[in-house]
């Protein structure tokens, strides 16, 4: 194991390298570009011995990875924002062909107007593809989750692509010390990817051919649902196995922080969780009974875990770094749906924060925690509020 100071993007590239990826195909897009540049460096210095396919678009990047994956290669690509949106059709294709392609998405706002900063809209738009989706908060977690992603995705009963989501700049371009595990040890743990129906000229099959309504379409979709159930079961197990071998445990589908006696808990994904952890510590010192729930896996969604949390904590404040127009923040919708049938369910309030990369600093989160305590005392005032919004004079902020 080697400890190096590196950006989240470098950690991503190292994650792919030590996982023994055989085919990388990607197209540059800010702020993901330095991932594929790092992979190109690995090609140049001889440490990456696989195929590096340069393509003309993200659509082709993922298409190349899917085809390579079908031959039995471990494949990797990385993208961001508009690139992921262009890739969208192929994200469906990867899941529907049950190809365990590894994908790192650097969460970036969607234009217009152009914005290259952190926002979860790009990822949430992939919600219904069937892809496994994880949100992370550190460069180390990206690297570790790329490795664990392959372990999970290549499980013979899972066989789905995975997407690690990491916030633009807060992770992609920020340096931190990262442990790079020994490649041999990682690859021994992962084993070889062995597809059940490899693309093989010696043994030809039709891949993704037409199916009629009375035939198999519905059943194939049902099997993707089952694969997600399997992934839900395996996710914490893979995490534990990884912890045993490499000494780091980032938690299961959710990570709870100081929730044992918490009266209010902040539920969030991505880098704002790190800030929230700091805020929880500070507020605990001042006597507030506050806690934090980090949703690590967005797909499969941690329904069981959240139901358990819902039975213990009376107020949940769910934060979203994006918005579903005509509704509310997507994580909030998911959390509410997950806990709807719980008896004595908590009050849920949705906070829209950090849209387009606006900095979610300690003060912002502290105000949210105080607002959640107000909800506990006086009941729910509003379902979903936009925090940090510049409002016309005379209009009071929704969170003081």
């Amino acid at each position: 194991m080697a400890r190096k100071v590196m950006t989240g993007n470098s950690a991503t590239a190292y994650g792919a390298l030590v996982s023994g990826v055989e085919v990388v195909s990607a197209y540059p897009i800010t702020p993901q570009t330095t991932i594929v540049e790092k992979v190109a460096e690995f090609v140049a210095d001889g440490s990456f011995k696989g195929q590096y396919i340069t393509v003309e678009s993200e659509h082709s990047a993922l298409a190349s990875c899917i085809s390579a994956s079908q031959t039995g290669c471990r494949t990797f690509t990385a993208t961001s924002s508009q690139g992921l949106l262009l890739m969208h059709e192929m994200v469906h294709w990867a899941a529907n062909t049950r190809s365990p392609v590894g994908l790192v998405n650097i969460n970036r706002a969607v234009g217009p107007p152009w914005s290259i900063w952190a926002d979860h809209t790009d990822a949430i738009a992939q919600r219904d593809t069937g892809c496994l989706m994880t949100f992370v908060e550190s460069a180390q977690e990206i690297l570790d989750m790329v490795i664990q992603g392959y372990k999970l995705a290549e499980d013979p009963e899972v066989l789905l692509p995975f997407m690690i989501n990491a916030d633009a700049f807060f992770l992609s371009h920020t340096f931190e010390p990262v442990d790079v595990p020994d490649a041999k040890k990682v690859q021994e743990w992962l084993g070889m990817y062995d597809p059940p129906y490899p693309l093989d000229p010696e043994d030809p099959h039709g891949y993704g051919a037409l199916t009629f309504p009375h035939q198999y379409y519905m059943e194939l979709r049902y099997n993707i649902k089952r694969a997600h159930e399997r992934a839900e079961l395996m996710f914490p197990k893979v995490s534990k196995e990884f912890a045993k071998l490499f000494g780091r445990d980032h938690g299961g589908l959710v990570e709870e922080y100081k929730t044992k006696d918490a009266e209010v808990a902040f539920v969030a994904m991505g880098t704002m969780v790190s800030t929230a952890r700091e805020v929880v510590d500070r507020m605990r010192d001042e006597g507030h009974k506050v806690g934090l729930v980090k949703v690590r896996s967005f797909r499969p969604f941690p329904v069981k875990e959240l139901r358990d949390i819902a039975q213990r904590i009376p107020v949940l404040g769910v934060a979203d770094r994006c918005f579903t127009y005509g509704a509310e923040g997507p994580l909030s919708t998911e959390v509410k749906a997950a806990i709807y049938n719980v008896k004595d369910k908590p009050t849920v309030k949705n906070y829209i924060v950090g849209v387009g990369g606006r900095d979610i600093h300690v003060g912002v989160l502290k105000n949210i925690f105080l607002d959640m305590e107000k909800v506990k005392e006086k009941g729910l005032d509003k379902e979903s509020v936009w925090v940090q919004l510049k409002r016309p004079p005379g209009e009071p902020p929704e969170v003081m």
Partner: protein
Amino acid sequence: MSKDKTEKRGKGEWKTYADLPPGPISMKSTLGVSLTGTWRTVKPVIKLDECIKCMTCWKFCPDVSIEVRKDGYPKINYLYCKGCGICSNECPKECIEMVLEEVVVEEEPEGEPVHAKEG
């Protein structure tokens, strides 16, 4: 692909979701099952006496329905050609004509076309 892996797959007789392979895989090649040539309303006909064997049509055919004859001339596989007309559009000699399906065109036999022998 090992033999026992092929045997384990069964013959593709699927009744429920539990029998299906994980992905949308046909147990054998779909070649010969789905003759897409029946979709055609117009068909490409190559005037071989003008053809220069450049194989532009072969390269552009999106359905891999243009084959190369032993003598190097292109040959349309009418079992699969859907009549999209891309070959006709791309042919630099403009010698691929799109003919209504109802018009019967006799195919030129294999071997050097008449003009080549004469020339």
